[in-house]
Each structure stands twice: as structure tokens, then as C-alpha cells.
């Protein structure tokens, strides 16, 4: 009990004294997961909309694959990316300069994109499917092109799409297995909130670990609070 109290006090102290190392870690966590989310959104929203609206053979199979992807264990993603990018891995040994190296920020972004994209696709697909089909008929009768129809449906499903993005962000910013394996938890370059918590726990600095944990919780809360505010305005 005392330990928990000490930890909470330590967390508050760190946050409010503007500890440089802590803020660097927060910044890095936000930057890596932010970039990964943008990439996932660019890939995932169009693909999700397509899967939700188009009718084609094998659609159910693709949907099943996406649903499986939504449950991908991050540790397995981390292991796969590790093996691919290792200097003796399939991609790594090609030695092409645009392939990210292990233990760098781009490698972590790759892993996070793989984790988040199926989530964005899946949620977008579900949101788009729930839009009243009459809308499409109406818009089409007004002479809209397929692209315009899709955009209209996406607009109607905007709340679901925001949920998709938040779900994706939540899953990657709180994830530890993949970023630890692929990033290596290097101080000042690939150390993010979750891996820092692991390290400080291992070191026996439980106060600091609890403090970092609180920061992570607070971040998650702020993101979700922001979204509910947006949702309120959307309605």
C-alpha cells in the first residue's frame, strides 16, 4: 500500500516538475504511435469502406481474415517483424536502404502499423455496413458517382470511424511486446512509455514504474475524453 502511494506521488511529481527524460519518452510514444496511426488510417479507412460496401466473391473470406488480424497477438507481430528486419532476415539481408533497420523508430512504426491496420479496417467495415442502405440509393438517384457515394456513406459512419482510429491508437500506444522486441528499448531513441515501465520494474524502481504507468493511463483518458467531446459535437 505504501509502495502504491509513493508511486502515485512520484508520478505526480514527475509530471509536474517537467522531468526532461519523462517528457522525451512521452513525446516519443506519441510520435511513434501517431505516425503509425496516420499510416493505418490511410491504408485502413479506404479498404474498410470497400469491404463494407462492395459485393464480390470471397468477401466473407477477406472479412474473416480481417477479423483474425484484429486479434493478432502483438508479440507475434513483433517476432515476425524482428525476423524479417534482422540483418540475416528475409528483408534485412537485402541491405536496401529504404528497409528499416532493427532497433530504430521506423521498425517500431512498421510493427505498430501491422497491429493497428486490421483494427481500423475492421471497425470501419462494421461502421459502414451499419449505415442505412437507402442512403446509397438516394444519393445515387441524385446522380452521384461511386466515389461520391462512398464519401457520403463514410460521412454518415463518421462516429464509427473515429472509434476505429481511437481503438487503433489505444492498442498500439499501450502495447509492449512488439516495441520491446523490435525497438530494443534504447535510451533516448526507442524507449517508450510501456518499455520504460518494464525496465523500471525490472530495476526495482517501482515508484518510477507506477509513475510512468499513471502517465500512460492519463494519456489514454485524455484521448478518450477528447473523442467523447468530439462525438458530442458530431451529434
Amino acid at each position, binding site marked *: 500500500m505504501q*509502495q502504491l502511494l509513493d508511486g502515485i506521488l512520484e508520478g505526480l511529481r514527475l509530471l509536474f516538475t517537467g522531468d526532461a527524460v519523462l517528457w*522525451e519518452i512521452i*513525446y*516519443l510514444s*506519441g*510520435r511513434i504511435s*501517431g*505516425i503509425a*496511426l*496516420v499510416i493505418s*488510417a490511410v491504408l485502413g479507412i479506404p479498404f474498410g469502406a470497400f469491404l463494407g460496401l462492395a459485393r464480390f466473391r470471397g468477401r466473407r473470406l477477406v472479412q474473416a481474415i480481417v477479423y483474425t488480424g484484429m486479434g493478432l497477438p502483438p508479440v507475434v507481430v513483433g517476432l515476425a517483424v524482428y525476423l524479417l528486419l*534482422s*540483418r*540475416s*532476415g528475409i528483408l534485412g*539481408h537485402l*541491405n536496401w536502404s529504404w528497409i528499416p*533497420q*532493427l*532497433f530504430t523508430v521506423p521498425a517500431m512504426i512498421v510493427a505498430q502499423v501491422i497491429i493497428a491496420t486490421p483494427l481500423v479496417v475492421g471497425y470501419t467495415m462494421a461502421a459502414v455496413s451499419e449505415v442505412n442502405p437507402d442512403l446509397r440509393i438516394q444519393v445515387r438517384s441524385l446522380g452521384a458517382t461511386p466515389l461520391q457515394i462512398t464519401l*457520403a456513406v*463514410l*460521412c*454518415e459512419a*463518421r462516429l464509427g*470511424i*473515429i472509434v476505429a*482510429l481511437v481503438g487503433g491508437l489505444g492498442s498500439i500506444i499501450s502495447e509492449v511486446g512488439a516495441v520491446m522486441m523490435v525497438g*530494443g*528499448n*534504447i*535510451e533516448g*531513441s526507442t524507449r517508450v512509455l510501456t518499455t520504460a515501465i518494464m*525496465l523500471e*520494474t*525490472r*530495476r*526495482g*524502481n*517501482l515508484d518510477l514504474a507506477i509513475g510512468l504507468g499513471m502517465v500512460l493511463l492519463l494519456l489514454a483518458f485524455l484521448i478518450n475524453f477528447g473523442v467523447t467531446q*468530439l462525438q458530442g*459535437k*458530431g451529434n
Partner: protein
Amino acid sequence: MFQKMSFYKILVALILSMLLVAACAPTATPTAESVAVPTQAPPTKAPKLAFTNTEIQQPQEMILATTSSTQDSGLLDYLLPDFDKEFNIKTKVIAVGSGQALQMGKDGDADVLLIHSPAAEKEFMDAGDGVRREDVMYNDFVIVGPAEDPAKITGLKTSVDAFKAIAESESKFVSRGDDSGTHVKEKNIWKKAELEPVGDWYVSAGQNMGAVLTMADELQGYTLSDRATYLAFLQQGLSLKIMVEGDSSLLNPYGVIAVNPAKSPKIRNDLANQFIDWIISIPVQEKIQVFKKEELGQSLFYPSSKLWQEAK
């Protein structure tokens, strides 16, 4: 129409805010640029000069794969800044188990290794995966357990006798179970005691030292720990006590290995050699000896490089 507008606003705001975060990226590594700016101040000189200056000042990167004990004890945080500064190198530390560190060497994913797994290190060198190995330092393992000491091992002289007593009384024992240097050490002691540890009393945790100590404390069981991690956790209120120590089979030697540069064109063998020369040098060995000595009343690591032994 209004709904459409607000949706786009939200989406654009979301993406913009993320791009903003991303765009701030260069501020994380301002050192090279900000240093280069003053050299550009005399505009009469060709800008080429400034450019080459930037190149020289950009630190070279080296990957050091090591065991968690060197990072968790704080030793690397204490030693490495000197090295990085002196040679303008950025050492990227990847702290894993000895098993994974050796695998990283085999795959060419690290330039230099600092580990404690003598038998596996020898295998690694014999296989041609490493090109140079030097002794660096040693610390020791201790057998720790609950104050009640159900297996009555306190005061036993050897680790083998202690392990036999634990197995006979079937007292809880928490093993690392992760093929780390510590786990290999533990397996060797079981082997010497001619015992196969199986049963409900033997817990294979598959975790790092800190987690295993905490687990042993919660279960009121025994475990084998390196002294550094044990002392760090003792300060955090761990209740386990040292029961057996000082046996020569409990010594824990650390070696440093330069990975064979044939593994990958990206391997920086020059930097690896620079690191090895540095860490086995007398001044650094002295620094290792006094690390945390005042705070804990005992050294955590004892220097043992060839140079150091010759000087003594």
C-alpha cells in the same frame, strides 16, 4: 451538408494534429544542426566546410547487446557516457538475456556483446561468430530464500549441497527458465548435484531476475540471483535473505566479444574493437571496481581484464 462539413473538420483536425506531432520530429536530434550553425556564421567561407563539419560531429552508432543485469544494475548508465563522449559514438544498448544476445551476434544484429555465459561464449567463438573475446569483470551469484529457511540451507558451504537440500525437502524454488546466463548457471548446479528438478515445488518463471526475485518473495521460495539485482531489490523491501554465498562455482564472469564483421556489411568492427580496448583499460576497470561501492558497502562488479591482472 452541415454534417458532411463537420466530419471533414474532425478528420482533418485529427490528421493535422498527428502530422504536427510528426513534423516536430527533428527537434529530438538538434545537436548536429545546432552545432553546425556557428560554423556557417562567416558567410565568406564555402558552405562545404560547414557540411563536412556536420559529418564529423554526427556520432557513429554502435549496437551493444548485453544481459539485463548490466543495464538493470545501472552499470552501463554509469560507464557508457564517458565512452560515447570520448570517441563521439552513440552506443545503443539492447538489454536481453545472454541467449538472445548471442543469437543477435550470430545474426549480425549487434556489433559487440557484453555477456556472462562462458560455455556458450566459447561455442560462439569456436563457431567463428566472434573475432575477439576478452575477460571484463565478474560478480557472483547468491542463493537467497525466505527467513524461515524450510530446507535448512543457511550456512551450507557449497551451492550443490544447498540445491540437494532444497530438492529433498521439496521447498519452492523459482527458476529463471529463460536460458539466460543465470539460468544456465542454475542448470549447471543441478547437473553437478545429479538432480533433475521436476515437480510442483520447481517453478520455471521464464522472466527476468527482478521478476523472479519478486515471485520468489511472494511464494516464499528460494532462487539463484546475481548479487547486483538482489541488492537493488533488497533496497526496495525484498524480504529474501542470502543463505549461501562465496562458493567458487557461484562466480559469474563477464566477457566482451566483437562480432565477426563477415556477418553483415553493417557491422562496425572498428567501433567494437575501440569499445573492447576501452573497457579492458586500467582506468575503466578501476571505475568498475568502485561502482556503487560506497552506497552498498561492497563492490557489485570486480574487474578482471588481462591488463588489470597484469598491473596487479
